[in-house]
C-alpha cells in the first residue's frame, strides 16, 4: 500500500511539476524553425477512494486509473498509441486487466487521401446507421480497428473501412459504462460517399456488421444497412436542410428467427433571421435494433431517452436574441410516440439566458414532459454568475426534477431530486465549489453534500472532489444511464504537451 501511495504521489507530483513548463511563456511567439518530427503526450490520471454509502463496514474501494496517449508524426505519417493502467478493483470481473494497449494506429495523408491502419472513429450520416466515438463522462471509447481509406476534396468525400469494433477495456471514469462488447465481438465493413451536386450535397452509405459470441467462431447475426443523405442551404445561407433515411436488414444466421426490417429517418430544417432562429426536426425510428449508433434523439438531457429503436417525434424550437444579441429567450415543443411504452409524448420547454452588465449572467430553463397517462416529468434549473472582483466571480445553481411513474397503475412512484451548488472562481485558473442534493424519494440516505476544487494552467488541469452524489440519471452527448451513488474522494489530473 505504501508503494502504491508513493507511485500515486510520484505521478501526481510529476504532473504538477511538468505543468509550468508547458505552453511558452505569455508574450512570446516561438520563432524556431519548423520541427519535422512532432511528439505529443497526454496523461490522464484518476485516483478514487469510494465508500459504500449504505454500509460503512464494507472496506473502501481504492482505484488508480491511468490513461496515456502518445503521438509521433513525421511529414505525412503519424502514429498514435493509447494505453490504460488500472490499480485496484482486482475483484471486479469486468475490469481485471491492469495494463492494456487500448488503441494503436498509423495514419498516412498523401494529398487528398487519408489512409489509416489501426483504430479510428467512424460515423455514417448523423449517426443513425453507425457511430463509434469517445465519451469521457462514461469512459466509453469505441473505435473500428482495421483499415480505413478516405478521399476528401471540395466536391467528393469517399470513405471505406473494415475491421473489428474495439471498445475500451479499462475506462478511465468514475462511473464507467460496461464494455458493450464484453462477451461478443463484431466486425464491420462499410462504404460511404457524398458529392456536391451544385444544389446540395447528396450522399449514400452501406454497411455490414457480423456479430458473434466470444465462445464461437461463427457469426450468429448479420446486420446490413443502406442509407441516403441530402443536405443543402437556401435563402443565401439563412436556411439549411438535412434529411437522411436508412433501412436495416437483420439476419439470424444460426437460429430460425425472422426479424422485421428496421427503418431510421431523420430530418431538420432551420431558418435564421435577424436576431432569431427557428428549427424543425423530425425522427422516425422503427424496429432499428442495432447497437453501434448514436442517432439524434431530439430530447433534453434531463430525459432518460433510452428508446432510439422504436420511436417517432417532431420538435419545433424558436429562439430570439435580445440585448444586442447577448441575451436570448427560447421555447421548444416536442410531440411524439414511444412504441415501447405504447404512449404519446408531449414535452414543452422554455428557457432564457440573460447577460447582466459586462460579466454577469443568469440562465434558467423549465419544462414539463408527459407520457400521456403513464409517466410525467417536471424540471427546472437556474444558474447565475455574479462578478465580484477582477477576474473573480460567484456562481449559484439550483435544479429541481420531479418524475412520476406508473400513473396508470394506481400507485405511482415518485423520483424527487433537488440540487443546489455554489462555486467561487478565484481566477480564471482555479475555483472551489460546494454542492448539496436533497432526494426525499431515495430509500436510504436523502442528503448528499460534496466539495471540489479545480485548477487549470496551460496544459495541466486538476480536480479534487470529496463527498457524495446521489447518482440517478446522468446524460452526456445523447446517452443517458443510471449511475450509482458515489461517496468518497477523488483526485483527477490531466497533462497534455
Amino acid at each position: 500500500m505504501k508503494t502504491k501511495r508513493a507511485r500515486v504521489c510520484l505521478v501526481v507530483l510529476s504532473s504538477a511539476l511538468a505543468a509550468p513548463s508547458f505552453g511558452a511563456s505569455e508574450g512570446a511567439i516561438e520563432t524556431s524553425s519548423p520541427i519535422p518530427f512532432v511528439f505529443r503526450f497526454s496523461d490522464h490520471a484518476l485516483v478514487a477512494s469510494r465508500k459504500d454509502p449504505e454500509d460503512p463496514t464494507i472496506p473502501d474501494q481504492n482505484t488508480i486509473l491511468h490513461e496515456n496517449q502518445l503521438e509521433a508524426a513525421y511529414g505525412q505519417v503519424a502514429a498514435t498509441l493509447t494505453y490504460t493502467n488500472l490499480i485496484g478493483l482486482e475483484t471486479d470481473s469486468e475490469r481485471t486487466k491492469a495494463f492494456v494497449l487500448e488503441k494503436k494506429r498509423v495514419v498516412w495523408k498523401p494529398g487528398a487521401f487519408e489512409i489509416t491502419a489501426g483504430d479510428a472513429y467512424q460515423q455514417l450520416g448523423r449517426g443513425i446507421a453507425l457511430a463509434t466515438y469517445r465519451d469521457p463522462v462514461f469512459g466509453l471509447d469505441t473505435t473500428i480497428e482495421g483499415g480505413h481509406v478516405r478521399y476528401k476534396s471540395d466536391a467528393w468525400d469517399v470513405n471505406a473501412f473494415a475491421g473489428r469494433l474495439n471498445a475500451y477495456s479499462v475506462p478511465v471514469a468514475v462511473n464507467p459504462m460496461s464494455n458493450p462488447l464484453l462477451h461478443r465481438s463484431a466486425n464491420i465493413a462499410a462504404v460511404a460517399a457524398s458529392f456536391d451536386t451544385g444544389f446540395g450535397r447528396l450522399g449514400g452509405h452501406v454497411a455490414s456488421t457480423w456479430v458473434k459470441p466470444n465462445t464461437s467462431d461463427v457469426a450468429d447475426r448479420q446486420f446490413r444497412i443502406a442509407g441516403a443523405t441530402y443536405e443543402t442551404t437556401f435563402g443565401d445561407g439563412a436556411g439549411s436542410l438535412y434529411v437522411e433515411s436508412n433501412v436495416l436488414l437483420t439476419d439470424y444466421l444460426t437460429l430460425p428467427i425472422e426479424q422485421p426490417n428496421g427503418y431510421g429517418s431523420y430530418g431538420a430544417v432551420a431558418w435564421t433571421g435577424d436576431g432569431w432562429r427557428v428549427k424543425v426536426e423530425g425522427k422516425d425510428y422503427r424496429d432499428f435494433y442495432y447497437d453501434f449508433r448514436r442517432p439524434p434523439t431530439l430530447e433534453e438531457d434531463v430525459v432518460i431517452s433510452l428508446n432510439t429503436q422504436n420511436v417517432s417525434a417532431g420538435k419545433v424550437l424558436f429562439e430570439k436574441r435580445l440585448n444586442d444579441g447577448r441575451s436570448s429567450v427560447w421555447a421548444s415543443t416536442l410531440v411524439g410516440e414511444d412504441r415501447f411504452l405504447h404512449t404519446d409524448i408531449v414535452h414543452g420547454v422554455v428557457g432564457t439566458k440573460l447577460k447582466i452588465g459586462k460579466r454577469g449572467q443568469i440562465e434558467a430553463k423549465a419544462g414539463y414532459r408527459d407520457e400521456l397517462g403513464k409517466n410525467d416529468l417536471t424540471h427546472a434549473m437556474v444558474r447565475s454568475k455574479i462578478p465580484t472582483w477582477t477576474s473573480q466571480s460567484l456562481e449559484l445553481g439550483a435544479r429541481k426534477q420531479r418524475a412520476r411513474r406508473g400513473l396508470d397503475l394506481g400507485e405511482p412512484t415518485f423520483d424527487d431530486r433537488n440540487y443546489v451548488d455554489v462555486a467561487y472562481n478565484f481566477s480564471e485558473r482555479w475555483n472551489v465549489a460546494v454542492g448539496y442534493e436533497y432526494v426525499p424519494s431515495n430509500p436510504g440516505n436523502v442528503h448528499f453534500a460534496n466539495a471540489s476544487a479545480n485548477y487549470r494552467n496551460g496544459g495541466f488541469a486538476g480536480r479534487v472532489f470529496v463527498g457524495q452524489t446521489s447518482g440517478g440519471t446522468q446524460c452526456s452527448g445523447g446517452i443517458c444511464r443510471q449511475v450509482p451513488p458515489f461517496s468518497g474522494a477523488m483526485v483527477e489530473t490531466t497533462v497534455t504537451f
Partner: protein
Amino acid sequence: MKAPFVLLAAFVSVSAFAVSAPDFRERTLDGKQLQLREQLKPGRAVLLTFWATWCGPCLDELRTVTGELAKDASIPLDVVSVNVDAPDTAADIRPVAKLNGLKFPVVLDAKQDIFGRYNPQKTLPFSVLIDEHGSVVTTFSGYQESMFATIRKAVASAKN
C-alpha cells in the same frame, strides 16, 4: 507492473519536448476542405478554437474574439474554429454560427478526431494559439476573459 509506472513518471517529468500543432484537413460548413498548414502565414498567428452549440462559454469566447478583431483589423491573427457537435445538436451548427455572427471558417469535426488530438479529455471551451511555423504558443482551457489580452501581447512581441 512497475515498469509502466516508472516509464510514465519519466515521461511526465521531461520538460524538453516538441510543441507543434497537429495538422489536419477536414470539411468546413461551407463545403470546402480546409488544411491547417495552409492557414499559417508569415507574420501572423492562428487561433484554433473548439466549440459546440450547447457550450455557452464557447460562444462567449467566439463573440469576444469576433468583436476584438472587428475593432482592430490590424491584429495579425487568423481564426479557425472547429465545431464538435454530436448528431443530437448538429442541426444547430449553422443557425448558431449565423446568429453569433461567426465570420471565420467552421471546420466540422463530428467524430471529434481533431479535438481528440489536441485535447484528449475533450473539455470545452479549448483554444490553441499557433505561430506562423505551426508551433503551439499557448493553450486556453475554459473561457478566460484575459485571453485576448494574452493574444495581443503574443502577436505584438512577434511583430517586434
